[in-house]
């Protein structure tokens, strides 16, 4: 048999055949899309028929109608005569407020507990372990109910409020703190913003200078000075009208000062304590992931312990920590929706009231989902950007 005599077979003409994987894939995909399309069409047509049968309006026209219900806590102007759209915005701001504050406090507390769990001190390590195990194995909703019951049932009334330090009152109406008041406040906030921008710029400049000349700029001290000096300058520039607003008992309740309502305090406490237990585990596993040899090598280069942690260990630990930390932040934000169970007016609870009044359930739930998707995607985009910045640079 001589292969060279045999004519080279021309590739067979492409025919439609079930044995062609490309054809099969096309058929499967078309079938899947068709099935999903059919299900969606079935649900939508049912829904439209149901809505027509129940005389429920559709569309987002209700957003501009008058809401007519009061909201207990609002950072932006709101009254019952405002529109539904405004009410939902108030709810969104409340959600963002508790989520942002919760993320900051839970990160600090969780990091401390995570480090404490690794402590060489037996007692500290065991206490941290007990905290983590208890807090992460009890449902968050139950913890919220617990804190709320503790505040509203077991705390004294305003007249017998506990007064651990001047200007701070703890009662079943929540926590009262002294606040700042006056025209200077805006100026001081502007000063703070200027300070933050200046520190970021300074950090870039210091990094470039160190790369070029090897000189180290004392960034920490400079940043501290800026943070203190800029708001102080703002206060002086404004002419200095700033007063301390102390809460005081008048009649049956407090006036003045800053209030943390029982709902907000319970929600914040529950979110922070629950999430910090998870963050502690993330931090612990991140630090444990750094090889002991890294500590020893850095020490043998003559670096002090603080510098070892900052320059060698933390950059490596952060690579392990950031992705699970991102999902903890997302969890905290989504868990803030449990506010509805204890009556804190977050977006879920406001939309819930709205859809009970208008009957427009579909629009309401779409608004909730869109809001959470936007917030979740923003947090994960930011954390992915940060993760990319600290990731190991390879070839």
């Amino acid at each position, binding site marked *: 048999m001589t292969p060279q005599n045999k004519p080279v077979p021309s590739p067979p003409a492409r025919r439609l055949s079930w044995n062609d994987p490309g054809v099969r*894939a096309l058929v499967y995909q078309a079938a899947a899309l068709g099935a999903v399309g059919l299900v969606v069409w079935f649900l939508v047509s049912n829904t439209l*028929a149901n809505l027509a049968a129940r005389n429920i309006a559709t569309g987002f026209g209700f957003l501009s109608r008058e809401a007519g219900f009061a909201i207990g806590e609002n950072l932006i102007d709101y009254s019952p005569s405002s529109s539904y759209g405004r009410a939902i915005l108030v709810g969104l701001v409340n959600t963002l407020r508790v989520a942002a504050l919760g993320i900051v406090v839970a990160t600090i507390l969780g990091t401390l507990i995570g480090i404490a769990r690794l402590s*060489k*001190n037996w*007692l500290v390590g065991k206490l941290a372990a007990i905290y983590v*195990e208890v807090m992460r194995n*009890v449902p968050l909703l139950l913890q919220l*109910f617990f804190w709320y019951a503790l505040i509203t049932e*077991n705390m004294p009334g305003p007249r017998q409020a506990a007064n651990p330090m001047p200007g701070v009152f703890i009662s079943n109406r929540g926590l009262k703190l002294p606040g700042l008041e006056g025209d200077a406040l805006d100026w001081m906030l502007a000063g703070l913003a200027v300070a933050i921008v200046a520190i970021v710029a300074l950090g870039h400049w210091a990094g470039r200078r160190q790369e070029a000349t090897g000189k180290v700029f004392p960034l920490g001290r400079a940043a501290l000075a800026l943070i203190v000096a800029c708001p102080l300058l703002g206060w002086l520039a404004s002419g200095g009208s700033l007063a301390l607003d102390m809460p005081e008992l008048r009649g049956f309740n407090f006036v003045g000062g800053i209030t943390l309502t029982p709902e907000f305090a319970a929600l914040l406490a529950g979110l922070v304590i629950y999430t910090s237990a998870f963050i502690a585990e993330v931090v612990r596993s991140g630090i444990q992931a750094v090889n002991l040899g890294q500590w020893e090598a850095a020490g043998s280069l003559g670096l002090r312990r603080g510098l070892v942690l900052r320059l060698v260990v933390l950059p490596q630990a952060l690579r392990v920590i950031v992705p699970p930390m991102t999902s903890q932040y997302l969890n905290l934000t989504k868990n803030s*929706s449990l506010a509805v169970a204890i009556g804190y007016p977050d977006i879920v609870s406001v939309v819930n009231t709205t859809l009970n009044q208008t009957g427009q359930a579909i629009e309401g739930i779409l608004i909730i989902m869109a809001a959470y998707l936007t917030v979740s995607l923003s947090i994960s985009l930011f954390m992915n950007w940060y993760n990319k910045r600290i990731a190991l640079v390879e070839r």
Partner: protein
Amino acid sequence: MTSSDTAVPAGSPPPSGHVGAWAWARSQLFSSPLNALLTILSVWLVLMAVPAVVDWALLSANFTAQNAQECRQSAGACWAFIAEKHRLILFGTYPYEEQWRPLLASLVLIAVIVASGMRRFWNLRLLWVWLAGLAIVAVLMWGGVLGLTYVENSRWGGLPVTLILSTFGIAFAFPFGVLLALGRRSRMPAIKALCVIYIELIRGVPLISLLFMSSVMLPLFLPVGFSIDKLLRAQIAIILFAAAYIAETVRGGLQSIPKGQYEGGESLGLSYWQQMRIIVLPQALKVVIPPLVGIFIVLFKDTSLVVIIGIFDLTLAAKAALSDAAWRGFGVEAYVFISLIYFVFCFSMSRYSQALERRLERGHKR
């Protein structure tokens, strides 16, 4: 070996400063000034908290009071409230004389969960264990056959509902999640896109919004005149929610399988489904068992959210017990009681998962 005066004779005890309680305390608790300070702070914390808690929970607590008045007079916890209400908290409004049925159903569900944890059952037999277990639970809870009276599921409540929502949830979400994970790794763009959209959409929104959706939107989705039960609606929402998280975990397992395994399967002439069933999934699922246990723990805790749409689970049963006007104001006791129940389940499962992780790791190390 040359012996000299300075050499330590073999078998002699270590110097007295390095053994015993005092040496342990010195090395563990007081090795540096900072450490000593931390120890003192911790001891102070323990001394502040533990006696107060013991006093509240045991010494000053009232276990036997007949009514709330008597209970309020004691400074400590009112466990008499729990003694009075434990049947309501555990079994909700299930008919009182029939409450052995939810008790037995709960035990069956726990037995099914425990059996799933045993490696002996990690094969097809597990499927039969689950099917039999779920069937027995259905018969016990509903009744209507074998001489048991029929109990409609609006009267179910308490611990069995929590267990049913989580075990049925994981049982149905698991196959769905595996399919989603396979779909997300599919080479067909349309199928991949559908799975990615589903997974990211579900993971981006809170469970509460899905529960709301199931309670207000599901009735609108169905043809006119057709309705489904409230408990089933919540169960569907939980299944849809858990499937997205299971899908992401299983995808991690699929990614950890080397490409050679897929190619090896292909070169043997196996079809896609045979490859997955015989070669890839058995390896991938073994890797993700510990994170799957983690998902089950989260799911078990998250079933408490059904309170918000008014399903009578353990948490809402506790709230119902609290709403009795004769026994007002014992919220902390009730929540501590059901927290303990949740804790026992979640803690034992997380311990199991840690032990399993260590054992599976050992299996991979050679």
